[in-house]
């Protein structure tokens, strides 16, 4: 999804306004998700951690919208509260990787020479590992827990942004406006922050938003394997795992958190796509007409 060619999205685009509408709708949906995650504590109908064995494995119904798990905990409440963990840890993760990666990338692109070569070789090193496998090893050494899982994924994910930012910086570095800024006496930090950064922010932002879906899946994957969030804490990935052994008897235990991941990842991926269309220079040109 993230690798879609620029032109391909034009298939869906019927006019400039429709991109704008799509962008607005998706932003609202994403905001709604965030809001739900933020207020989960206050809106969940039951205590997500309260066990009641008398109500174990109830199918979805009016009392429990998404049924209950093997300990009689309300699935709907657990999904809501898990959303807080899943969504916010993903956002933190993506922020860390975006900021670190972009920072490293700009430095490399701007300075060149030894610094560039050194940092880029390090990033090559991380790019050479299959990310989830490396994250597994890191989480395995550091032990389980959501913080370690975020750390593990951050360690393997920043080089993507470093590469991107470096390449973009190189294209901007020799641009006439940079020359002009230099001639007018701007200091290097000012040049990087005021001139380079805003001009490369678009593609970085799009990549970051598209990355939210991937990261959410990887984080859920680590939790599914028992290396992320630890029980009894709720997290979508670990909830799918909890329900796995009862897939044939109480399928809602896995399907509900699975659907939650699906919907969230879909919204963020579509948002990323649309954002890219919106920021697309070609598209901008059309808008200008």
């Amino acid at each position: 999804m993230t690798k879609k060619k620029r032109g391909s999205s034009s298939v869906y685009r019927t006019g400039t306004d429709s991109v704008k509408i799509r962008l607005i709708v998706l932003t609202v949906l994403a905001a709604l998700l965030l809001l739900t995650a933020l207020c989960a504590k206050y809106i969940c109908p039951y205590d997500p951690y309260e066990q009641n064995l008398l109500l174990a494995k109830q199918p979805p119904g009016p009392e429990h919208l998404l049924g209950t798990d093997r300990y009689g905990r309300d699935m709907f409440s657990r999904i809501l509260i898990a959303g807080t963990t899943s969504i916010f840890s993903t956002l933190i993760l993506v922020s860390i990787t975006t900021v670190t990666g972009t920072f490293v990338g700009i430095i490399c692109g701007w300075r060149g020479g030894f610094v560039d070569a050194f940092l880029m070789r390090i990033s090559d090193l991380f790019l050479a590992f299959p990310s989830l496998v490396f994250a597994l090893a890191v989480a395995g050494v550091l032990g389980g827990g959501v913080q370690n899982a975020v750390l593990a994924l951050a360690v393997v994910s920043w080089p993507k942004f470093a590469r991107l930012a470096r390449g973009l910086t190189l294209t901007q570095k020799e641009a006439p406006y940079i020359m002009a800024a230099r001639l007018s006496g701007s200091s290097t930090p000012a040049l990087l922050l005021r001139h380079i950064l805003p001009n490369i922010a678009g593609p970085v932002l799009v990549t970051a938003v598209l990355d939210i879906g991937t990261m959410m899946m990887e984080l859920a994957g680590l939790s599914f394997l028992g290396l992320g969030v630890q029980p009894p804490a709720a997290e979508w990935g670990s909830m799918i795992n909890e329900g796995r052994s009862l897939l044939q008897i109480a399928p809602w235990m896995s399907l509900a958190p699975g659907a939650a991941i699906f919907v969230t990842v879909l919204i963020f991926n579509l948002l990323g796509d649309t954002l890219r269309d919106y920021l697309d220079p070609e598209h901008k040109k059309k808008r200008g007409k």
Partner: protein
Amino acid sequence: MKKKFIAAVLAGAVMISGLSVSVMADKEKTFVYGTTGYSEEMGDAGLNPHDNYSGWSALRYGVGETLFKYNDNMEVEPWLATDYEFVDDTTVKITLRDGVKFSSGRTMDAQAVKECLENLVKVHDRAPSDMKIDYIDADGLTLTIYTTEPCPAIINYLGDPYGAIIDMEYGVQGEGGNANVAGTGPYIAEKVTPTQIDLVKNENYWGGDVKVDKVTVKSFSDGSALTAALQTGDIQGTYGLQYDNYALFDGNPEYTINSCATSRCFFGQFNFESEIMQDQNIRKAIEMGIDKEGFCSVIMEGRGLPAKAAFPDSFSYGNEAVETVSYDPEGAKKLLEESGWKDTDGDGYADKDGQKLTIDWLTYPTRLEQPKLAEYAQATLKEIGIDVVVNNTSDHMTYAADGNFDVYVSSTTTAPTGDPEYFFTSTVVGPKNYGKYENKEVTALTEKLHQAFEPEERAKLATELQQKILDDDGFFFVSHLNMGIVTKSNVKGMAAHPCDYYEITADLDVE
């Protein structure tokens, strides 16, 4: 072009190798068995009976046999032996069965058994202290064992899986989880790994014709995979299916469920070297904070019975004979308060001198219900203000041996030999006492039990001992389990046994 050619050759090779696998299996009877009971994590990988619990595997999968075996009432019966007699308190004379051969070809006589038992007490961790063997005399088919002190339970111990008789001249081939041995059983292991055993029928089995030609024992660590494998037909029989999956097979004519009550028990040890665990009120509160009834009826789906002490109701010194605390969250809270643990910062957990009441709960995943017990107890103990941190790891033995836990929940068969002594000598005063529980009276009583001949006397001592460790809150017992074997309905002659260790026998047949 060249590339295409190479690709074609490779594809051809793959197809041929695939075909060659499917060609075999003509008239041969084969049986594939999936179990969660065979793994390094359980300490029973490999078939060397003289190594930890590997004797269980030798016995379970029909490779090894013991001198004496247990019937369905857990009474001792002769097996490779035909008779025994106590000459005096410290001497027992055993007559061996004639015409038994090891799979190595050697004839089993008193000399071979003597070599095997001598090696057993030399290298095994539990056997020497159980049997107190001084020396052994061998004469034809008569084996005379002299013990250093009266050892009335020696006949029971000889039926323990570690007593599986193997040919020491053939020796132990391979190490640990790969160890193979020459036993006397209906099956011979061709290949042994920590995850799989390939067995072929023993053509010269003394007990008659063996019906199935090839048996494969596969280890599963994941319950869902085990269930799925049985449903797809990849395996034809299982041991250790998770209890909440029985519903998928119950009442289905394609499958047979065979289950029986055993002395296998989920129990916890408190770590007496951990500072907070030294407070008896905390230990008692933990037991009072666990809802055993709820766990057994709902999470175990009624296939476990709440336990008060080590032995189930079927024993005269079982549950009914002892008294312990029952589920009482309010009472538990009061006990914690007595010791100064109270929730003063409103976080829901009790604290004292700024320290939160947190306990490390060590357990392992292959007994599939143990992690569920941990998560369930985590919730019920939270009610009384105890924060439970679960460490659910396959590496539990390292943690246990290092004393890296507050509560260690494992499962054991408390009376595998139909006799109460084993639990006390192995777990209470023996090498499996990871919590370092110590009480001089208990040690003395265990010694007394070890030497008592009269069954009534032994039962009385077993009751007394259980009551003592419960009064000390040294251990807590959660549930006695029904062990079940689920097979395709065309599989015959396979039944769960109360001792939990005869699984694949000469009776096994696939119709």
